[in-house]
């Protein structure tokens, strides 16, 4: 929840802006003052979807235009007032967001952006075909206020400002909550987010409908200000581009970005139109374009982030001193390397039956079956390409099995979405690490905690516990982008732990670590097992594995070669053959 103090800048900005606009009597400057918050809100609505999830939308004009036409047509045909129609337009925008989002979120990256581009262009032609090439909001001479037709243009600015403040507050609220965390996680790594128990589709749909609702409402208000609605002026490419321009200029993924962008660019464009337009027609576009290009070159992430980085750099030396002590990373007391010989529990927590998956002609996993007992550490080994990671992907839902079953505590979960499997108690880490680099360690872990937490506070509590279990408490505030490989591995472990799983799937957690570092991580894993966690681990480093695991499962060409206790498995000739080739079998001790 945003505190009053964190909202102070927004409130102060709005108050100053309102005071300035009240003192401007020139109706043209007032119009520009009205358009600044209008485009800022549109930029904020774009930012809410694209800034936080990273799914670039080239088609926000779709929502904007639907709002604008809803208001114009509602007033023309049903004599409804914009006071009523603007909220309605918000509702319509939200519904449009759902309808557009549901099919389009199947696409990712550039494909999503291009698909979004198509919606406003398609709707544009629908409105032309319906014969709404030009419509105007009827002038109301009798009861203008009831139809939002003010004699004093300052009222429009105040109204726009109120909508902007509301949007800023809403964005702040989203930013600080589970909602914003989920969106940020999706932006930085959608697969990791899904594996951390975030229902990415549901959160993305919430984001696009909220974003669509804001765009629809501000589109409706824009129609009231412009008074004339044409398909080009509300569904056109330039409208979608305007949202991108103000947000990218000011800074993506922050509430201030679109506001800064709008406050600078809209008056600049207008001044250029006014001053240069009639003298050197066309020059305004050139200057405007150059200005945007220059700023993007100097500050590719937008002005806000550039200013923040500059500010940070200036205050960095001081912060560095303070951080020196804990910067010596995680220190973990090396535990005795005792061989664990715990009685194998009879409880089966995970049972895999005849799991198979093919990619075209390649049988990546064939008829794999095994059982994972409570409190057991199972090592899954095999040469490169044996299908180890594919098994994990089938277990946690990234892939659907062609055949076979995955039973978690007796319940068949095969083919479920990753976030559902995460909720059922399976956490995982990745071979290629998937941190959220712009977030702190603690925030990275909080993302994983939401699956088990009811409130934001509880999530932070669970996350802090998980961070301390892996020994990273001292550096919890650092950005994930600045960490060493070992710290990242531990952080990923913490993220998986924060969701309070019963089973952990660890995919090459020791890869890329030096000898000493690997030992530290092994110690942490051993401690987890001692605390009652059930673990399946993929690993290449045999030495570490032999010490760690209770039993091995050996895969080659997607099939199980053998399974059993470490001592037996490492002597098995089939295992040696799979790893080293036939001629080594003879040399192996028998």
């Amino acid at each position, binding site marked *: 929840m945003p505190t009053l103090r964190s909202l102070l800048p927004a409130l102060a*900005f709005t108050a100053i802006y309102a005071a300035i606009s009240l003192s401007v009597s020139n109706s043209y400057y007032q119009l520009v003052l009205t358009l600044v918050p209008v485009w800022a809100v549109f930029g904020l609505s774009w930012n809410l979807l694209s800034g936080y999830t990273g799914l670039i939308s080239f088609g926000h004009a779709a929502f904007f235009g639907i709002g604008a036409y809803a208001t114009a047509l509602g007033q023309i045909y049903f004599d409804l007032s914009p006071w009523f129609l603007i909220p309605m337009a918000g509702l319509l925008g939200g519904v449009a967001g759902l309808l557009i989002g549901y099919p389009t979120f199947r696409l990712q990256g550039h494909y999503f952006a291009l698909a979004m581009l198509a919606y406003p262009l398609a709707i544009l032609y629908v409105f032309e075909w319906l014969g709404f090439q030009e419509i105007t909001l009827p002038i109301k001479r009798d009861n203008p206020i009831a139809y939002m037709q003010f004699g004093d243009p300052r009222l429009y600015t105040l109204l726009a400002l109120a909508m902007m403040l509301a949007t800023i507050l809403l964005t702040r609220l989203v930013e600080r909550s589970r909602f914003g965390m989920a969106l940020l996680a999706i932006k930085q790594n959608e697969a990791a987010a899904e594996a951390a128990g975030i229902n990415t589709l549901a959160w993305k749909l919430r984001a696009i409908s909220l974003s669509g609702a804001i765009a629809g409402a501000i589109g409706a208000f824009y129609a009231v200000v412009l008074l004339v609605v044409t398909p080009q002026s509300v569904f056109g490419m330039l409208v979608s581009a305007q949202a991108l321009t103000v947000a990218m200029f000011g800074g993506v993924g922050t509430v201030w970005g679109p506001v800064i962008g709008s406050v600078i660019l809209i008056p600049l464009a207008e001044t250029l139109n006014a001053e240069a*337009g009639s003298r050197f027609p066309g020059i305004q576009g050139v200057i405007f374009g150059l200005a945007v290009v220059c700023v993007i070159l100097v500050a590719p992430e937008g002005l806000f982030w550039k200013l923040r980085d500059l500010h940070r750099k200036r205050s960095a030396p001081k912060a560095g001193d303070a951080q020196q002590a804990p910067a010596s990373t995680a220190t973990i007391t090396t535990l005795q390397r005792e061989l664990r010989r715990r009685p194998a529990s009879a409880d089966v927590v995970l049972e895999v039956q005849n799991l198979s998956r093919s990619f075209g002609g390649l049988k990546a996993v064939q008829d794999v079956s095994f059982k994972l007992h409570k409190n057991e550490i199972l090592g899954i080994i095999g040469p490169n390409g044996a299908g180890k990671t594919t098994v994990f992907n089938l277990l946690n839902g990234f892939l659907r099995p062609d055949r076979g079953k995955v039973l978690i505590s007796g319940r068949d979960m095969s083919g479920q979405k990753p976030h559902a499997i995460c909720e059922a108690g399976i956490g995982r880490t990745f071979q290629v690490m998937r941190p959220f680099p712009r977030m702190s360690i603690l925030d990275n872990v909080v993302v994983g905690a939401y699956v088990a937490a009811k409130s934001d506070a509880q999530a932070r509590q669970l996350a802090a516990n998980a961070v301390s279990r892996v020994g990273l408490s001292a550096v919890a505030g650092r950005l994930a982008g600045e960490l060493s490989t070992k710290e990242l591995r531990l952080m990923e472990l913490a993220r998986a732990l924060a969701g309070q799983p019963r089973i952990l799937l660890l995919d090459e957690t020791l890869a890329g670590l030096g000898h000493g570092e690997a030992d530290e991580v092994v110690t942490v894993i051993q401690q987890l097992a001692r605390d009652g966690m059930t673990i399946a681990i993929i690993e290449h480093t045999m030495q570490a594995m032999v010490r760690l695991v209770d039993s091995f499962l050996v895969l080659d060409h997607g099939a199980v070669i053998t399974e059993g206790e470490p001592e037996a498995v490492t002597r098995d000739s089939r295992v040696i053959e799979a790893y080293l080739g036939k001629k080594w079998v003879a040399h192996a001790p028998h």
Partner: protein
Amino acid sequence: MNRRTGSSITRRMLLAGASSAMIVSRTSAQGPSEVKVGLLVPLSGLYARPGTVMREGAEMAVDHINAQGGIKALGGARLKLIVLDSGDTTEKAKNAAQRMVAQEPDLVAASGAYLSSFTLAVTEVTERASLPVLTLSYSDLITDRGFKYVFQTSATAGSQARQALPQLVKLAETASGKRPKTVAILTDNTAASVASAKSMREGLLAENGLQLTVDETFTPPLADATPLVQKVRAARPDLLFFLPTVISDAKLLLEKMNEFGLGQGKVPTISFGIAIAEPDMLQTVSPELLQGVLTCVASWGAKGHEALIAELKKRYNEPWMTQNAISTYGDMWVIKEALERAGKADRAAVAEALHSMDGGPSKYYPLGEIKFDDKGRRLGAGMTIVQWQSGVPVTVFPPELALAQPFWPKS
């Protein structure tokens, strides 16, 4: 910290804006012997070319008026043209209009804004500022809103088709000896084209004994005209109504017609609007392909305008006088006339004079009078039919304005 930086930038910028506003309003105070008239037209972007021609027409008129002694009722005050760029979007046009009324408080009237979408937005502003605006845009909607300060000098889109159709049928009958029976309509989906095509479909064709055999609407710009032309070839209509707004569409279709053996009069082609008669056409289409093509426009350089046409050619190097030049030229004279009657340089008085004006037969707009009805439409507003003849679109109808005899392409 950074947040504070953001808002201080804003404050500084807005203060700069406010102070420049004061500078502008101070310089705009001028001597009483000058009367300001606005011209708000697109000078940048997609529609810059027609906007420029409108400015040429306005400049010529203002020069002529001033050379002939200015506004006599105001002691020979000279007209001063204030030109504003409406840009290429509805929003820019509306902003420009707001700038015009806010920063030029002593304007008495204005003319604009070419595209009817722009005119609609501009007049929403000028209406609230009680500034009279004359326009050549011909969307019916412009004068259907109950506005008091907008005056439409062209016949509206609906009325143009109503006037043109009987004339075209008569022309075809006298020239070819046989009355046309079937027609095809190929229209783009822009506002003006849609309005003209709609009135034809909904009764006008039937009233004139014509049967619609092909009816196709396309979205500009066309990528390929083949499917459209194939339909025309299959139906073989007696007349083809072709309503493009974009020059490239006109070129594509005419070339494709020629390729299919339907061009150069095999199927007489009639257009609505100015696109097909713009000077730019000749840069992409050969005069042979255009020979005989007719278009119905609200106004054109015609009989009685010979000296103006010559001056426009000499001064601005324009090959002929389009609607944009002649109509805007006429607008300035109408404003001058209203000022003479008002007797003072005041926008309310000028608006009142325009409403009550009875200026006799129109000189620069085709037919009708210089008199406006309650809606602001010019009484008896006629239209012209223009035909491409040897590489020049010349007025061939109405007879009293015709610079040449129409010919019907012989098949």
